């Protein structure tokens, strides 16, 4: 592919990629949310794309990264055909290394991350920690980047029940893609195989907290049962179309931590979570 013409603003977008894990078989794959992030980057015209992963460079990592590289068909000139692999030992805290790579060598104006990884810590904290250490704003729930003009990005943010909110944010910014963003395109074998993995070294910072942890498969979270009280079709329809969260609840502002804790405690008792 010829190089795509660079517009007036050479926008660099970094997409943070994690090693995904298939929910049924546990095999390594491209993580769904990060793949949505890459799809978002690919849909932005004339952007320079930097793919970044920090972590141990092993087989699972390679399989997964090639999954993302396979999405670069037709975008070979944009940088989507190469992953910057920040090689870190498995016990390292990747945030400092990622921070340094982003700020020193890649220098993106826009960083795209998923809301949550599929394995490892997977807490969704990483974008927040990055935001803190880089000092960049963070916007969650993004489904589209509508445009970037004069250093200001127009973002589309997903709200509950299909609502959307348009935001203008000054660059640089970190955005987290929402699970309702455009589904990732198919990963093709040819470009996946030809894509390059560029390993860069960064000093590793040992993650002391991790040593204390014991990792076990997550339990399924309990779901509130839906009790159907409707007697007519109209009521059933209204119930189905209604917000899933209850109408109750209260907003507490400017209260002391003790009061807030007491309110939460009271609610948990009411809901029979605490006995």
């Amino acid at each position, binding site marked *: 592919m010829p190089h795509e013409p660079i517009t007036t603003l050479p926008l660099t977008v970094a997409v943070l990629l994690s090693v995904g894990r*298939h929910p*049924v*078989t546990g*095999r390594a*794959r491209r993580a769904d949310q990060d793949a949505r992030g890459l799809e978002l980057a690919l849909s932005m015209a004339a952007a320079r794309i930097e793919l970044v992963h920090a972590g141990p460079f092993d087989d699972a990592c390679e399989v997964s990264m090639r999954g993302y590289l*396979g*999405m670069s*068909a*037709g975008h070979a000139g944009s940088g989507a055909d190469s992953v910057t692999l920040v090689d870190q030992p498995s016990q390292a805290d990747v945030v400092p290394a990622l921070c340094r790579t982003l700020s020193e060598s890649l220098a993106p104006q826009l960083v795209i991350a998923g809301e949550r990884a599929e394995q490892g810590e997977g807490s969704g904290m990483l974008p927040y920690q990055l935001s803190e250490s880089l000092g960049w704003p963070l916007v969650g729930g993004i489904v589209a980047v509508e445009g970037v003009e004069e250093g200001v990005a127009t973002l589309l943010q997903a709200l509950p029940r299909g609502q959307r909110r348009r935001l203008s944010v000054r660059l640089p910014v970190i955005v987290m893609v929402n699970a309702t963003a455009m589904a990732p*395109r*198919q*990963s*093709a*074998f*040819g*470009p996946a*195989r*030809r894509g390059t993995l560029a390993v860069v070294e960064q000093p590793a910072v040992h993650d002391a907290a991790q040593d204390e942890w014991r990792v076990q498969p997550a339990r399924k979270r309990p779901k509130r049962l839906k009790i159907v009280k409707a007697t007519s079709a109209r009521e059933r329809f209204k119930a189905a179309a209604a917000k899933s969260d209850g109408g109750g609840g209260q907003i507490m502002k400017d209260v002391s931590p003790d009061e807030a804790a007491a309110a939460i405690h009271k609610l948990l008792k009411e809901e029979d979570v605490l006995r």
Partner: protein
Amino acid sequence: MLDTLLPILIFVALALAAIGAWRRIRLWRQGCPSPVPFFRGLAAVPRRYLVDLHHVVARDKVMSNTHVATAGGFVLAAVLMILVHGLNLAEGILGWPLLAASAVMFGGSLFVMRRRRRPPARLSRGPWMRLPWSLMAFSLGVFLITLPTVGVLPEDIGSWVLALLLATVVAWGLGEMFLGMTWGGPMKHAFAGALHLAFHRRPERFSSRHGGEGRSTGLKALNLDDDQAPLGVETPSDFTWNQLLGFDACVQCGRCEAVCPAFAAGQPLNPKKLIQDMVVGMAGGSDAHYAGSPYPDKPVGEHHGDPQGPIVAREGRALLNAETLWSCTTCRACVEECPMMIEHVDAIVDMRRFLTLERGDTPNKGAEVLDNLIATDNPGGFDPGSRMHWAADLDLPLMRDVEQAEVLLWLGDGVFDMRNQRTLRALVKVLRAAGVDFAVLGDEERDSGDVARRLGDEATFQSLARRNIATLAHYRFQRIVTCDPHSFHVLRNEYGELGGHYEVFHHSTYIAELHEAGRLHFTPWKGGTVTYHDPCYLGRYNGEYEAPRNVLKALGIEVAEMGRSGYRSRCCGGGGGAAITDIPGKQRIPDMRMKDVRETGAELVAVGCPQCTAMLEGVVDTPAEVRDIAEFAADAVTHEDTSAADGPSRGGHGDDASPTASTRKEVMS
């Protein structure tokens, strides 16, 4: 005057034809290299033409005789004409056979003319409409100029006007027959066709004097070793040179079009047009000159291409649209019918390989199915650890435990489908009734790779195949039996290239064999009329038309055959991933097939394929119940040892297939 004019005409025509041939060969050589045995290939042409090609042509008796007369007469007349009129050799003696040959050819051309009067829709028009006239001009012209040679008419008969008129007629004939052969007229099929027979990419599909099956249906493996090489066919020049030669051999008879289920369903595919598009791409230009039926609802003249240009454009139009390629069910009806031995399915899969492997553009559910195959080894994305849940109560011997068995029962992905589970249970019941020593791979089995391969994902196919072959290598068995013709075909014909050689049986073949050996006994059939639907991957792909019918016969069922059965069986619409890519048409292929069933008046349609079962059962307001051969057999099977008798009942009930104490002992011993 003719004496001086004729040699000039003949040799000018031959020289121009030679130049045309050289240009044509250069067009073919744009393709990728593909080594062929040059002299052995040429030497094989007569047999391949007279036996294999004629076998296909002879399905239409009138046309076959017409072609024998016209083509045979022409070849003989042309050779003799060069000798007699070109070189003036033995005029008195050779003149007589020349007269006879041209007369025979003229007779043939009258039949060609008759067919052209009201040509069926499948025939191309355009330049093809002038062909009978050209044939007549040639044969009549040659006949008339030869009359004076043998002395029937005096040498100096008529005036120079008559001579000139005759020379013009002969020139027309020579132009169509000699020049048209290499410069691209209707007669091109003779030149390209003969060379296509010589250098066919599948020489093994032709019969040989020493017998042999003369069948070659497995797709050729794509070389994945070079990790920088682009995969699949993007441009016409990415085909091998002999594939391009094959496209050029097309005679536009439209037999493929007449049998194509996708074309009949109004999906945007016409095998004949597809091949002509490849010819357009090879030579460069637009499809505006195409004079046959277009892709349904796709006007002619909007597509264009060149040898180095893309076949399917990323945006806009190129040679053809991607939906055309994805409409194909890989049923091979077109290949079976093609008198020129063109391999349509190979070409379609080659182009699909590019779309899937390089462009990541498999339509509809294709991408999801391929992702599932990669992540879970089955197209549905089910937990591979749940493969044997359907047989929780059957206590099937696992290869992992027994390590060897006479028969390895390959279950296929039907294990996840509740309908196919009934078939599997029936099959297990039959095998146990016959006391067959069998075992299954259980959770170690994976998808055979059939769907991945037909969707163009050769990488996933090879990955699945290699892992399956490695698993199979751990165990000892004499044969594999499966109730899935797709697995059957892949295991039998496509694993060999990757190092897996097995004796594979479709369950119908195996049941027929067990019955023949007296190991199975059936109670006579008391139900209604039954018709049988030939699965493409069992019939056309593997030539097994008889065994399922033999099983039904053994059951006492007389099959009410459909109009299209055997090698002309109409596809159910589920092959080649067509049910996954789901390209819209005017009607659905399984609906058309069920209409065929309705015409027989049958109450039951016997099938031998989980895919066919699913497609045919998906037809609403169905006239007939769909039942697998295994279910028929299981319902009728009687146990010789009375202790095991549990009476005939409908297959599919949980306890039907569970072993009784005595049969169980038999299996173990």
